[in-house]
Every structure is written in C-alpha cells, then in structure tokens.
C-alpha cells in the first residue's frame, strides 16, 4: 500500500482538471477561428475579400491557439510543480485557494498583474523593459513548428510546418540568452549582473551538446522537418527514435510478418543487410540514442535554468540572479516564459525521441484487438461532429492525447530531478559541460554516422 496515496490522488485530480481547463479552451478557439467562422463566412457565397478573411482566420489559428494555451499552461505547470514537489518533500503544497488549491496559481497570476511595476534607480529603463519581452517572445515563436508535429500535421496547423523545423526551434531557443544578459546588465544590481554573465556562460556551453544531440537525431532521421521526423516514427514504440532511430523497424516488420505466418527471414535480411555487423550497429544506435536523450535533457535543463543548473538565479548565492529587480508584470512574464520553455523542451523531446503523437503500441499488436468495430461504431455515432461540424479530427485527437501524456510525463521527470539534486557550482558546471558532455556528444555523433549505414533505418 502506498503511504501517500491520497496525496497522489489529489495530484492526479489537479492534473486532470487543469488539462481539461487548458485544452478545452484551446480546442474551442482553434475550432471557432479555424473551422467554424470560415465555414460561416464561406457559406454565404463570399466574394474574394471574404474568402481572404476566411483564409486569414485559418492562418491565424495556430498563433491564436498558442496565445490561449501559454498562460493557461504556465498556470497549470506552476501548480503541478508545486504540488509534485510537495509530494516529494513530505509537505502539503498549496491547498487553500479553490477546492484543494486548484486555483492557487490563478490567484497568483492576478496578484502579480496587480503588483507595482518597479524600475530601479540607475537602471537602463528601455533595456530593462525589453528584457522580459525578448525572453518571452521566442517561446511563442519557437513552439510553432512543434505544433504541426504534435497535431499530426492537421491542416489548420500545417502552416507552421517549416522546412527548417528543428533548426527554427533551436534558433529561437538561443535568443532568451540575450534577454538574460540584458536583464542582468540593465538592473543596475551586482547580483543581477553576475547572474546574467553566468547565464551567458552556461547557455553558450550547454548549447553545444544540446544542438549536437538534436543534430544527431536529425542525421538519423535524414531531415530537419519536425513533421517528417514525427511521421517517420509512426507505428509503435519500436519505431521511436529513442530506440535507435528506426533501428528496430526490421524487428517490428518481422514480428508483423511472423504473425501473418509468413517467412520473416527475408524481412530481417532486408532491414539488416550486413548480418552480424548490422545487429551490432543496431545495438550501437539504440545505445547512442539513449545517450543522446540524456545529453538533450541535460543541455535543455541547463538552457532553461532548472535545478541542478539554475546557477543564473541561484537563490542561496545570487538572491535571484537576473530577475532580482523585477516585479509585477515583468516578473510574471519571466515566470511565464520559464514554464513555457519547460513545456517546449518536453515537447521537443517528445517529437524527437518519443514519436510525437504516435501511440506506443505497434500496429501488429493493435491488429490483434477488436478496435476496428469500435472505431467504425464511434465514427458513425459521432459522424455529425466529425464530418459536418468538423469539431473533432480523430487522428489529431488521439495524437493530442498521447502528446499530452508524454509531455507531462517528461515535465514530471524534470520536477523529480528538481526535487532531488543540489545545485552545481559554476566552474564544476563548465567542467561538466566542456569536458564531459561535448566530447560525449561528438562521440555519439561519430558512432551514429558509422552505425547508421549498416542498418536500414528512418533516414533511408
């Protein structure tokens, strides 16, 4: 019997409540703006102007849904983190506002918005004001290519499907660093300055393993396009990049063939053409992709300044680092951006390593289950919603469900890390980054380059 089962139950309740509270509005907004309004507009024999309006509405859907999503999500993540940490550290956590603390962060947000906005004397007011914006804007922009990937390339979100996908995300992820230096320098506070400089040093060091790990995954996949990367991994966990970037695709196909009582040896031969060398290469690929995931998570933790890499805002040394002098709305923006970044980082990991919106069950396993009948029944029952109102797109719906599960599990993992580890010291952090992670990422890169040609995997 788990000793703190009631606490876990309450946490689960909070998660369920808030996920509904986040995604129902997002869903409603995207449907209303992207489907319903254009449908009405186009239903009345529109001229070219009205058609253009409808097009613009459709085009604006992703950004609108992101704008609805981000504040709600940050509210949830703060509460999630606080309650989960309380669970790890034998405390209660926020439990007063609303039923069982459900609305705590909403109240906090209102409080922050009403607080006085202070610009310290001697601060460079323009840069001081710009810093939170520069910190926050890239998170909105950077999430866009991921949107297409996690909604299974739904037509409404397909506009965000850029050919440079992951590169776009990485580029926008490198901008917040500037904001941190700006905030640190313009605050006219020595602690802030040191925090800003630390942020610069740390982000530059950890960007290398981060980018190298993702580049290696792109190398496995043979494309930068996140949608393509996500689609490659369809068909169960054996195809996911975490298992060698498709190194086990042959196994998947062989099992499917064997289940159909056919000869599976040629399938194996087709996927692993070099015999034993291919199998060794497949094992190397699986090993490397695990290392890559570790490198990515470490680098990402450092990029978004979470414990054990939260040196730029180390509370016991630098008071609060770069955001010491911030209050009110500006601080709220910093806070919002931090949690949004955590979400984005988990999203990228989901898409790049865990198959995006793919369900973990292999196709041959699903074929054993009597799902087709259920699907057909549900499809005809909900036909009005699906086909006429276009309220639900079944593929996107299931993709979203799986993405939510994966992403928030990764967030939970990040919280667990935060709840366990002490903080590095800055020189140890640099050592760790440059002497361990960078060589490791280079080695993984080389191994993947060589191992990949021996196995027929995603990139082919």
């Amino acid at each position, binding site marked *: 019997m788990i000793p703190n089962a009631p606490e876990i139950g309450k946490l689960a309740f909070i998660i369920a409540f808030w996920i509904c509270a986040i995604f129902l509005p997002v869903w409603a907004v995207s449907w209303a703006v992207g489907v319903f309004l254009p449908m009405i507009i186009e239903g009345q024999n529109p001229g070219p102007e009205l058609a253009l309006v409808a*097009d613009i509405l*459709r*085009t604006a859907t992703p950004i609108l849904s992101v704008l609805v999503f981000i504040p709600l999500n940050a509210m949830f993540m703060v509460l999630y983190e606080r309650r989960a940490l309380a669970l790890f550290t034998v405390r209660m956590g926020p439990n007063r506002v609303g039923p069982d603390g459900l609305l705590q962060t909403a109240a906090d947000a209102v409080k922050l918005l009403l607080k006085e906005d202070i610009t310290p004397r001697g601060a*460079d007011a323009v*840069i001081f004001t710009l810093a939170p914006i520069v910190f926050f804007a890239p998170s909105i922009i950077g999430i866009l290519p991921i949107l297409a990937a996690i909604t299974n390339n739904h*037509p409404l979100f*397909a*506009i965000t*499907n*850029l*050919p*440079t996908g992951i*590169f*776009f995300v*990485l*580029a*926008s992820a*490198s*901008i917040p*660093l*500037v904001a941190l*230096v*700006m905030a640190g*320098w313009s605050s006219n506070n020595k602690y802030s*300055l040191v925090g800003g*400089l630390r942020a*610069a040093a740390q*982000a*530059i060091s950890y*960007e290398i393993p981060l980018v190298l790990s993702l580049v290696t995954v792109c190398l496995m996949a043979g494309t*930068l396009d996140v949608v393509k990367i996500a689609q490659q991994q369809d068909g169960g966990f054996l195809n996911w990049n975490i298992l060698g970037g498709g190194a086990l695709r042959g196994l998947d196909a062989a099992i499917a063939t064997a289940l159909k009582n056919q000869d599976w040896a040629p399938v194996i031969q087709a996927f692993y053409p070099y015999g034993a060398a291919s199998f060794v290469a497949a094992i190397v690929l699986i090993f490397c992709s695990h290392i890559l995931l570790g490198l990515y998570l470490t680098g990402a933790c450092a990029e978004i300044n979470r414990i054990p890499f939260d040196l730029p805002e180390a509370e016991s040394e630098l008071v609060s680092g770069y955001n010491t002098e911030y209050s009110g709305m500006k601080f709220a923006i910093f806070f919002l951006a931090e949690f949004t970044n955590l979400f984005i980082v988990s999203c990228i990991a989901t898409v790049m390593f865990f198959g995006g919106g793919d369900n973990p069950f292999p196709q041959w396993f699903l074929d054993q289950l009597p799902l087709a009948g259920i699907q057909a029944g549900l499809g005809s029952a909900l036909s009005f919603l699906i086909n006429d109102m276009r309220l639900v797109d079944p593929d996107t719906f299931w993709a979203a469900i799986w993405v939510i599960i994966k992403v928030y599990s990764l967030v939970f993992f990040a919280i667990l890390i935060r709840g366990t580890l002490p903080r590095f010291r800055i020189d140890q952090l640099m050592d760790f980054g440059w002497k361990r992670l960078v060589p490791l990422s280079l080695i993984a890169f080389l191994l993947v380059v060589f191992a990949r040609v021996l196995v027929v995997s995603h990139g082919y």
Partner: protein
Amino acid sequence: MEQYMMLHDYVSNAAAETALFYLISIFAIIMSVGVISDRNVIRSGFILIGVFGAISGLFLLLQAQFLALAQVMIYAVGITLVVVIALMLTNPRSEKDTSYENEPVSKDGSPISPFQRLRLIGPAFVGILSFFTIYTAIRSESWIASGEQVSPDNVRVLGTALTTTYSLPFEFASVLLLAALIGAIMLAKAERPTPVIEIGIDE
C-alpha cells in the same frame, strides 16, 4: 506545406513585401545608427542584436530561411559574447572620458577651428563616400532579374552544394574556424603566473 506556400504567396505579394521591406529596413538603419552612436558600448551591443534580427527578417523575406536562422543563432550568441567582453573591459569610472567620442567639441571648451572640424567630419565623409561609391556601382549596372522563384525548401540545395561542389571551401572554412579557435585561445589565455616573492607577512 500547402498552407505554407499560401502564406508564401501572401508574403510575395508585391505590396506586402514592399511594405515589410521598408518597415524592416528602416528599423535596421535606425538601429545601426544607434549601434555606432550610442554612448554606452554595452547598449550598442544589444542594439546590434536588434540590427541582426532585422537583417535576418530580410533574409526571411528573401526566402533564405536557413541563413536567417543561422544568423539568429550565431549572432545572438556571438554578440552576447561581445557584449560580455565589452562589459568586462569597460571601466565604469573611466567611462566618462570616452563617452564624448561622438561630440565635436575641443578639449578645453574653445570653439573648434575649421581644421579640427574637418577632422571630425572625416569619418562622415568616409561613410558618405563609401555609400556613394557602392550606390553608383549598383546603379551603373543593369540587373537582369531571373523570373524563377526560389524553392522554399532550399536547405536541401544548400546542403547538397556544400557537400559536393563546394566541399573544399567548406573544409577550408572549418580549418579557418579551427585556426581562429586555437588562435583566440592562445591570445586570450592567461599568461603563466609569474612567481611571486612573498615577503613581509610571516605566519
């Protein structure tokens, strides 16, 4: 991808593109003037990041997506480093001495003689002259624009070119970077600590 192409059509719409171009370029010009004339070198570093952001916006307009992103990635980090080093090298106490580098004022406060003034106008003359020269060169050539469109997926074209036709310069570039890296490390490395003779304080 279809919708991307649609948006692409919107942006390529001549009027929209012109408007965007002027918006971005005027922003870039003002920002770059800010870079060279702001008294605080750190702030001008931050402004420089704005310039580069604007320039990468222009790259996006020119459908060079990869380069726009590379620009952001390299310069966001690179210029921040410049700023940080400027921060290290700026002595707050002596900042006042250098802050008047933009003002045409003689040291003792007397009116500036025409010759001194000419010296101060010198840089402006160089700037104007260089613009004029280049502009003249541009206008004295008739450009034949190709009617084709750039394919939106030109990352592949770039990658192919870099690894086939241009692989030698690519390798040279990497050698150059390595050399620069080593050189920079050698230059910036701390000198070997000179032995300090401890005198005076005894335990």
